[in-house]
């Protein structure tokens, strides 16, 4: 589905990613774990098209997407749940969702909205409410819902657990875990390795812009290095 090969990303003079390679298969959930500043968000931003790689390749279903602007990537099945949601705060829940289906037909939008309301019934209750009046957890759900509205093939999720109550983290991760049933693959970037490793199939560990470890979720959870660094011993 998604293949990243030898990716280098720079902000001005500072290189943030030094040759990252990874891949996400069909209906697979993959996590990129790492501490603050490891380059996780940069990786996600490069895949959606907010940052440009200096070197290397991003391929989506075999097509090189390096030079495509974000809206072209969305047409090809990518969607993003950005860090802290980046909702349109002055618009209603419904309008936020409708915008998520910007590229879709009216008919499809209605159908997809039902799918999202099934995932998050609370959003159906709040559909007329202005986004900024939602609680933090509801906003996070709306961000996921909005991304789901485009009926993506690959969902990029940036730090979805940040600032959420543990019970909501569980709920949100439960939803993510069910996404492959809807033929959606997921690339998840997380600091919360403990919860992430419970739901993903595979994971990569990113440190200072390098992939230092990769493997099946269980292998990583059992790895003494991962335990020491990310799972609190």
């Amino acid at each position: 589905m998604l293949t990243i090969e030898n990716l280098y990303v720079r902000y001005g003079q500072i290189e943030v990613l030094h040759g990252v390679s990874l891949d996400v298969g069909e209906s697979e959930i993959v996590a990129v774990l790492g501490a603050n500043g490891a380059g996780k968000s940069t990786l996600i931003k490069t895949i959606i098209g907010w940052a440009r790689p200096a070197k290397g390749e991003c391929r989506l279903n075999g097509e090189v997407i390096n030079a495509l602007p974000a809206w072209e990537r969305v047409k090809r099945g990518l969607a993003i749940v950005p860090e802290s949601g980046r909702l349109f705060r002055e618009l209603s829940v419904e309008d936020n969702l409708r915008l998520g289906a910007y590229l879709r037909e009216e008919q499809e939008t209605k159908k997809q909205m039902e799918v999202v309301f099934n995932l998050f019934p609370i959003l159906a209750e709040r559909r007329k409410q202005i986004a900024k009046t939602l609680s933090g957890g509801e906003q996070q759900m709306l961000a996921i819902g909005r991304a789901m509205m485009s009926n993506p093939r690959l969902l990029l999720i940036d730090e979805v657990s940040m600032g959420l109550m543990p019970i909501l983290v569980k709920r949100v991760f439960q939803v993510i875990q069910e996404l492959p049933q809807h033929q959606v693959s997921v690339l998840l970037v997380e600091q919360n390795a403990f919860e992430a490793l419970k739901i993903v199939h595979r994971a990569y560990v990113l440190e200072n812009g390098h992939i230092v470890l990769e493997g099946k979720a269980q292998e990583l959870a059992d790895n003494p290095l991962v335990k020491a660094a990310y799972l609190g011993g």
Partner: protein
Amino acid sequence: MASGYFLTILTFTAMYISLALSLNILTGYAGQVSLGHAAFLGIGAYTSAVLTLRYEVPFWLAFLAAIVLTGLIGTILGLPSLRVRHDFLVLATMGINFVVVSVFKYVDFFGGAMGLVNIPAPSLFGITFRGGVPYLLLTTAYALFTLWICWYLSKTWSGLAFQTIRNDEEAAASLGVNPARYKIYAFGISAALAGGVGSLYAHFLGSVFPDNFVFVESIGMLSMVIFGGIGTLRGPIVGAILLRLIPELLRFIQDYRFTFYGALLVLMMLFQPMGLLGNDSWLWQHLTRWFRSSARSAKEDVR
């Protein structure tokens, strides 16, 4: 004649309502702050003046040509703005204003600093609009047309797309919205509507001079949008009315009009950045609360 004077003020107010509303499409809806809107007023005015004077084109054709041509030029001038953001865009639009005024001033075809005079009064269906009530109706009709366009835009997909690029361009792009397309679109519509006002302006005054379209005029238009309440329909209308009428009523500020505009802008930015009637403004919140409670008590009275 006192009533003639009054009609002139109202006619100008109607034209400035259209200008403020058209600028609001670009700046309020799409979030692209422009300090060059007077340039588009000028392009429309000169287009209409040149066509009727030099080529004896009938007014209504020149009027349509002013709208179309200004819209096209606005679209083209909007292109470089795609590469710049925020404060740099403001500078770029200022630059556009200066360049356009210089062209009027230094190109002989446009009459140079002496401007173009003896522009004929418009005639439509055999009626000649020579100032007075007929011209007020003409400019008011155009203001209503502008208002309708703005209202229509705010109800469509484009209206929603404008809001998304104003709030978060990157997020909008990641939903499939092409920000460049909508910015150009906003530039085009905004300029076209201002161009139409330009035509009405030229034929009302009967003459155009480069100095009518200088940079401070653009500041005046932006002040109306901000003072009234940026991004709303009511705001630019109220802003244009108040900022045109207050200096007329208080004659002593007439000479200091731009001092007054400037001071007002500073005060608004400090205390009411959403404008007098913006969505979160003090006055608007009180008005809506009052309307709601009186609606409620009216309902209870019925019971």
